[in-house]
């Protein structure tokens, strides 16, 4: 999947304060019937977002004015469950580029990175603080600076009034991929000579 590089994201933040959001929640299995990797954004969080009759549920955050933005702020252990990459596609195609949580499931984290989504992990206390900040002004824009690995959050409209700045970690190789919009497949395919050499001494 090709994606737009990420450098700095400045955006309003969508808050979905639920722990352990699994990939069946992010996109239910019945929407995985496509053989393409596009068109999943409209079914993101489907069973929360729409009522059984198909109309949008006005109570759900994505259907509210504050439901637009490139940053999703959410509870712990995000993306657990099924390995479906459709979850990452749906989030990206809806418009998210950054997911903030105190922890991501392993497969989801990799899927996100492979699709131009930054899984931004903070500790539990910071996450709680971020939730509070968002509460006090849900429309304040936050900034994620990937190059300097810094998240700047605030509850006011002017970013100069920063109230919380926190560094985050990202693997240097993965960071490079996100910054340039490149992926791992070309890198691995380029290693064929070493792989063939390895195979010569390896029995299955």
């Amino acid at each position: 999947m090709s994606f737009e590089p990420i450098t700095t994201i400045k955006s309003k933040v969508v808050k979905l304060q639920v722990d352990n959001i699994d990939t069946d929640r992010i996109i239910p299995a019945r929407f995985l019937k496509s053989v393409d990797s596009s068109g999943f954004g409209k079914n993101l969080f489907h069973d929360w977002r729409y009522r059984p009759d198909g109309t949008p549920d006005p109570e759900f955050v994505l259907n509210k004015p504050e439901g637009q933005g490139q940053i999703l702020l959410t509870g712990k252990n995000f993306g657990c469950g099924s390995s479906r990459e459709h979850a990452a596609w749906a989030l990206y195609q809806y418009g998210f580029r950054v997911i903030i949580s105190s922890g991501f499931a392993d497969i989801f984290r990799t899927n996100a990175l492979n699709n131009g989504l930054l899984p931004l992990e903070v500790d539990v206390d910071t996450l709680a603080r971020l939730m509070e900040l968002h509460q006090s002004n849900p429309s304040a824009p936050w900034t994620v600076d990937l190059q300097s690995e810094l998240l700047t959050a605030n509850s006011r409209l002017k970013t100069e009034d920063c109230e919380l700045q926190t560094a985050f970690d990202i693997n240097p190789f993965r960071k490079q991929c996100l910054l340039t919009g490149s992926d791992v497949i070309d890198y691995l395919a380029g290693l064929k000579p070493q792989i063939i050499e390895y195979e010569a001494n390896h029995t299955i």
Partner: protein
Amino acid sequence: MKSKTLFDKLWDQHEVLSLEDGSSVLYIDRHFLHEVTSPQAFAGIEKRGLPFFRPDQAIATMDHNIPTTGQANPVMGVESGLQVDRLKENCAKHGITLFGMTHPMNGIVHVIGPELGLTRPGMTIVCGDSHTSTHGAFGTIAFGIGTSEVEMVMASQCLLQRRPKTMRITINGKLEAGVSAKDLILYVISKLGTGAGTGYFLEFDGEAIRSMSMEGRMTVCNMAIEMGARGGLVAPDDTTFNYLIHREFSSAGEQWEKALSGWKLLKSDEDAVFDRQETFKASDIGPMITWGTNPGAGIPITGTIPQGDEKALAYMGWQGGEKIMDQKIDYVFVGSCTNGRIEDLREFASYVKGHKKAESVTAWIVPGSKKVELQARAEGIEEILNEAGFDLREPGCSACLAMNDDKIPAGKYCISTSNRNFEGRQGPGARTLLASPLTAAAAALTGRISDPRRVTEDCRL
């Protein structure tokens, strides 16, 4: 030489390159494919102009998105048909062995791999499916991957991975009668939590694991992912070797002997250090059932539905504070890569033999593979089931993920031998209770949540 865990030994053996930042280029021995998570990956390599690097190491099946009745003349939605057709085309084009619907070797990917002898000790195994962890029961590094990674393996037979930490989970002592592998793993997840395994690869050990059949070990490793672990493994032993001998794709003669001598060395060193160690007593474990909306919500079947998680309670339609026993159920689903193997059907059948299904219950018994289906017929299991009021369906993932028509209606309670009870997993609004085949059998007979150790004594329906 430094002592090592089995996981670390296998990882080291499969490391093509070790990068400065600590990640590895890991060689993959076996790649399983299915219709749902592969089409975009096939399209991906084609778009890049890359060949399928090692087609002989890939095997494809159809399982997630197929009907479980009338497979010979399937009536499928346009999109479902599309995935099935696309897999056929892709396999033909790239020279991949495919076990399509009705093929005698077709079935759920994690059931057929072991059953055909395609899964062998010491391998690295991946599939675009999180329950690939199942294959760890054979002493393999097996884990689920996303579609981009499926594409990586197609293109290079390798993955770029960070080495997980290791956790050993030891279960001492023996499980009592009526308590199964499923209860054991539901118990462990309920104690450690659904996120406890994140960043870890597990090794299961201890007498309870050693005395377990391969089917049981597969059930345990299957659900390693439900505590967030990349996978879980069990060191191979005679139980493993006896299971694998004479399987369709197992080697024979001298080759088998040679492989066997290598497999016997696959174990963690005595003094190997794990990053984390957890120990449990088998005697503390009884039949388990989940009350809530994640696999960590397991409680003893004699227990009380806990209060506190209002969201989950509301979804499940419970108050909290009441006993789970005797709650009414509507559906029973026996199947999936957790408990859809022949041993599971045998257990279920021996329990319901001579009794009758409760009229209020709709039951779907779905074999994990065509071989399981045929074997169930040959062993007389189907007859026992029919007499007790149950039908045996055709193989597939079925109501485990409700991608086909096998959906539990909104608001209905389903005792399910599968592995996930997430909101909506078995259909929008469906209420899933995870349990063992025996507990499912007890509920199928009574129409209520019942202790499988007691139904046969008291109910004799």
